[in-house]
């Protein structure tokens, strides 16, 4: 049964209030104004007063406009027909093709029972050594790329989308610049990956409330695909915009802000989305890789901070590289003992040595005399950055591990690395690989970075 109200009492920000008895919390309504129809969702009921957030914004809505309550919650189409399509934040097509109105599913879903979850065990290979070797991406993981505006995070994201071995990719874009949207779409199209992708795109020009729906739509669809046995990778960029949209609505609703204006439930809001990452035993899985831009590279900002506590790690993308410090995949220990026996020890040792290199670099910058050990570290650091960290490097895990041993052998003696003796005996390169590019300097790697877009 549809209820209709034709008196809007309050319009404030993107939230309107009408008098409507008997409507359900969470129900969807259609607001018809001279600008066209827009969906709205009930976010608070107070006696007869019903508050709705209007997806397309409140501009142009008149107090005399008609609000039709639809009697159901937000829904989205689900079938194989979604593949290759592009939608906006309310599920309408963005690609000029017909809309899909049958076979609708609820966007809000239930929580997965924790006892039905299983220990993650399958690695997703991406061909990026800083991911595969140092912080492996694991099926059913939720992980975020922490970065700052201006870094090539969308490039990295789309590269993962192209190279990761999954069945279906779902891209949720929030507050995207239009050219970023085109870049993402065209890259997927050019490499033929669009046919196994679904895109839900909210651009910076679209109404802010629609941004809030993007993760929910993407994840609802992903969950269904996973229950049908598909391995789904959900890419969300940029979650900072999602949080800002949350903040906007919370402030309009006069919620007490907790930290820098963000609502107190930011953690729970993010968690209920990210927790959709799951591996359904004997069925498919949902893996979430998101982007979180940090204002001013500040990891203590509420958005990256709360995200970090929810996700199972983060890739810290800075200076156009994934830094080993600050990056962490919390699930890697489930997979990297099944890759190769030396994987874990080698990874830890290389990162520890890289930390020493950073100290030494600092010392050098202050003009101290370099000891022979310091010089070894400097050489190691440069090789490490050039051969493994550079974003353009593309190699399977096995090659990356071998290259790791190669770098160690070029720079250190066998007993200097702190690696277990049996591993050293087995993997230390037998003959010394000639140090190609011993005097590689920073300029070299910078140059290489400039060339990177071609590689992508």
């Amino acid at each position, binding site marked *: 049964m549809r209820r209709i109200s034709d008196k809007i009492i309050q319009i404030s920000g993107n939230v309107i209030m009408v008098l409507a008895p*008997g409507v359900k919390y969470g129900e969807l309504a259609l607001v018809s104004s001279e600008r066209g129809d827009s969906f709205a969702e009930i976010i608070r009921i107070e006696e007869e007063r019903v508050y709705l957030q209007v997806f397309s914004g409140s501009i142009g809505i008149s107090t005399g406009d008609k609000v039709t309550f639809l009697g159901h919650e937000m829904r989205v189409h689900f079938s194989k027909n979604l593949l290759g399509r592009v939608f906006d934040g309310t599920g309408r097509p963005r690609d000029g093709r017909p809309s899909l109105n049958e076979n609708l599913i609820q966007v809000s*879903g239930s929580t997965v029972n924790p006892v039905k979850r299983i220990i993650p065990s399958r690695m997703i290979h991406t061909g990026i050594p800083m991911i595969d070797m140092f912080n492996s991406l694991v099926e059913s993981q939720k992980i975020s790329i922490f970065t700052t505006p201006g870094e090539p995070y969308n490039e990295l994201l789309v590269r993962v989308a192209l190279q990761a071995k999954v069945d279906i990719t779902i891209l949720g874009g929030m507050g995207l610049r239009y050219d970023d949207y085109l870049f993402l779409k065209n890259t997927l199209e050019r490499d033929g990956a669009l046919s196994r992708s679904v895109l839900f795109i909210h651009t910076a020009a679209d109404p802010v409330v629609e941004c809030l729906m993007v993760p929910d739509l993407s994840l609802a669809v992903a969950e269904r695909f996973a229950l049908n046995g598909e391995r789904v990778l959900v890419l969300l960029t940029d979650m900072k915009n999602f949080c800002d949209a949350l903040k906007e609505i919370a402030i309009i609703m006069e919620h007490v802000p907790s930290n820098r204006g963000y609502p107190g439930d930011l953690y729970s809001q993010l968690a209920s989305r990210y927790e959709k990452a799951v591996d359904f035993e004997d069925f498919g899985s949902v893996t979430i890789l998101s982007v979180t831009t940090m204002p001013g590279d500040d990891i203590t900002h509420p958005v990256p901070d709360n995200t970090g506590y929810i996700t199972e790690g983060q890739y810290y993308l800075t200076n156009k590289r994934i830094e080993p410090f600050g990056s962490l995949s919390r699930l890697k220990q489930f997979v990297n003992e099944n890759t190769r026996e030396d994987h874990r020890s080698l990874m830890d040792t290389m990162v520890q040595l890289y930390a020493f290199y950073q100290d030494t670099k600092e010392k050098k910058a202050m003009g101290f005399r370099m000891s022979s050990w310091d010089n070894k570290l400097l050489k190691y650091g440069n090789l490490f950055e050039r051969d493994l960290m550079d974003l353009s490097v593309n190699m399977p895990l096995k090659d990356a591990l071998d290259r790791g041993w190669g770098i160690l052998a070029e720079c250190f003696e066998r007993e200097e690395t702190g690696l277990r003796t049996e591993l050293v005996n087995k993997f230390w390169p037998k003959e010394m690989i000639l140090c190609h590019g011993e005097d590689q300097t920073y300029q070299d790697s910078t140059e290489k970075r400039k060339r990177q877009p071609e590689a992508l």
Partner: protein
Amino acid sequence: MKLDSNSENHKKKRWGMIVGIDKNMITVQFKGTLKQNEVGYAVLKGCRLKSEVIRIMGDKADLQVFEETRGLKRGDLVEFTDELLSVELGPGLLGRVFDGLQNPLNELVEKGGFFLPRGTYLTALPDDVRWIFTPRVRPGDSVEAADIIGTVPESIFIHKIMVPFYLSGRYQVIDIAEPGTYRKNEQIALLKDGRGGRIPLSMSFQWPIKIPVSLYRERLDPVEPLITRIRIIDTFFPVAKGGTYCIPGPFGAGKTVLQQITSRNAEVNVVIIAACGERAGEVVETIREFPRVTDPVTGKSLMERTIIICNTSSMPLAARESSVYTAVTLGEYYRQMGLHVLLLADSTSRWAQAMRERSGRLEEIPGEEAFPAYLESIVANLYERAGLVSLKDGTMGSVTICGTVSPAGGNFEEPVTQATLKVVGAFHGLSRERSDARRYPAIDPLESWSNYRGIIDIDTRNRILKLISRANEIDQMMKVVGEEGISLDDYLLYLQGNFIDSVYLQQNAFDRVDSATSSERQIKVFSLLMDILDTPLSVKNKEEARTYFGKLRQIFLDYNSSSEGSVEFHENERRIKDIVVEHQGDTSQVGKTSLRSVLVESDLDSHFRRSTSMKATGNGSLTIQKEEDEKDIR
């Protein structure tokens, strides 16, 4: 205080009507009387949503709903129960996985498959299990609350069946069941109160989670160390049975891994894990692995001594708040049986945030960072439910509480960390620096402290901590003046500090042997370490010193991962001693100087002290020192 729910059943059902809905909070209009924290059920087509009264104003009450409120509307009915939010206590709790309201999650799978069905509540204890009951009292005996009337075997323990905690005064046993098998709801005893009223007892009863169980003779000073088999904890920052401690740390510093290791290795009878508002993935490992891991002490699976209360981040918020109380109540129940219980709550920050969200929705005046003003007293109340107690029958039991704290931005100045620090006996601060450098467990030896007695005497403990702190200062100094700018003595101290750090403080959680070090082995290895440090060293220059410690470290790491008593264990131990003897100096100049300088507080101390350092001083009180310039951990 009368808490018996059974006697209230004859009362008429009371109803209220929903007049407002805001997220998980509903406003209900009611007639007659209503209790604060009473449980009500919002009736939605096909299911009932459990909720709790959190504020009463006139004829309206605010209730927090333990479920999603989608679909509710104005005018829907709420049924009040007159009961406070309670848990069921009795045999059959061990080895189980519950949500924050004590719903058994494994049993919910049958109802909801992969997902948690909304508005479905099951009884916590299995109805159909038959327990082998042995009576401990006879008709005519006089009993009171928490007295043992019989026993049943439950997995690894003899579970004591007690007189319900809510009965006050003395009662006479009229009838007691014969030895035999009974289900939890069958009557096993009949009591008579002073006025001749008869009270039938079964093996289980309800207890409200927010009220502490205090039916013991006296609360004692926690003196006995609780061995976690984590070296840095047991040796340097020990925890006591019945004590409290907290683990604050920025994300990614390894809080959860540390708790997981503790839940495996801690030498206690029962471990209760409260996964409160954290990732579901983190409990999965425990749920899946524990049944397959054998506990060396009992010879049975680890799961049989474990209870998991699991209210992860995407599960209903209000139940997150109650999950911690549910966990501690179960802990107190087992303590009444004379057992030692360890409660691991991960994370108390999420728990506090749940209170913050509720407080915000109630439009209370916010305190610091929008946390409610009563945050501190609530945190204190929770930790005060820990304790070592002597029971009426003379046995001892304890509840030890460990809470992780997830400070926003890794900044320990935030309200939850500060409220927690005031009420705990040990502080294991995790640092991002250490975890970035892969120095696990990332407990910062410079910032952590413990007021409990451990397996190593306090003077030795402090001496080594001082050495580590001094080594850190020298490290900082070297960053300014360079390696060549410091003396060989100082450089040796720096190397010694680093050496202790890498071979003793750090522990490889993934190594079969190294992941758990028994207290005996800790004492042995620690004394070997002390021998090494006390042996005067003859090295000519820094290069030589570095090589010496490098070599020593390599063998020591192999030593740590060789199982005690094995051939390689002895071999490695011999090699370590050989190297030390090889480099022993006949003039003990160097060694002496190093030790002396450790004990002399240097002027540089204050300059290079870390941002917020808290250390236990000799008399056990705390000194807190802050420096303005380096507030954030980052």
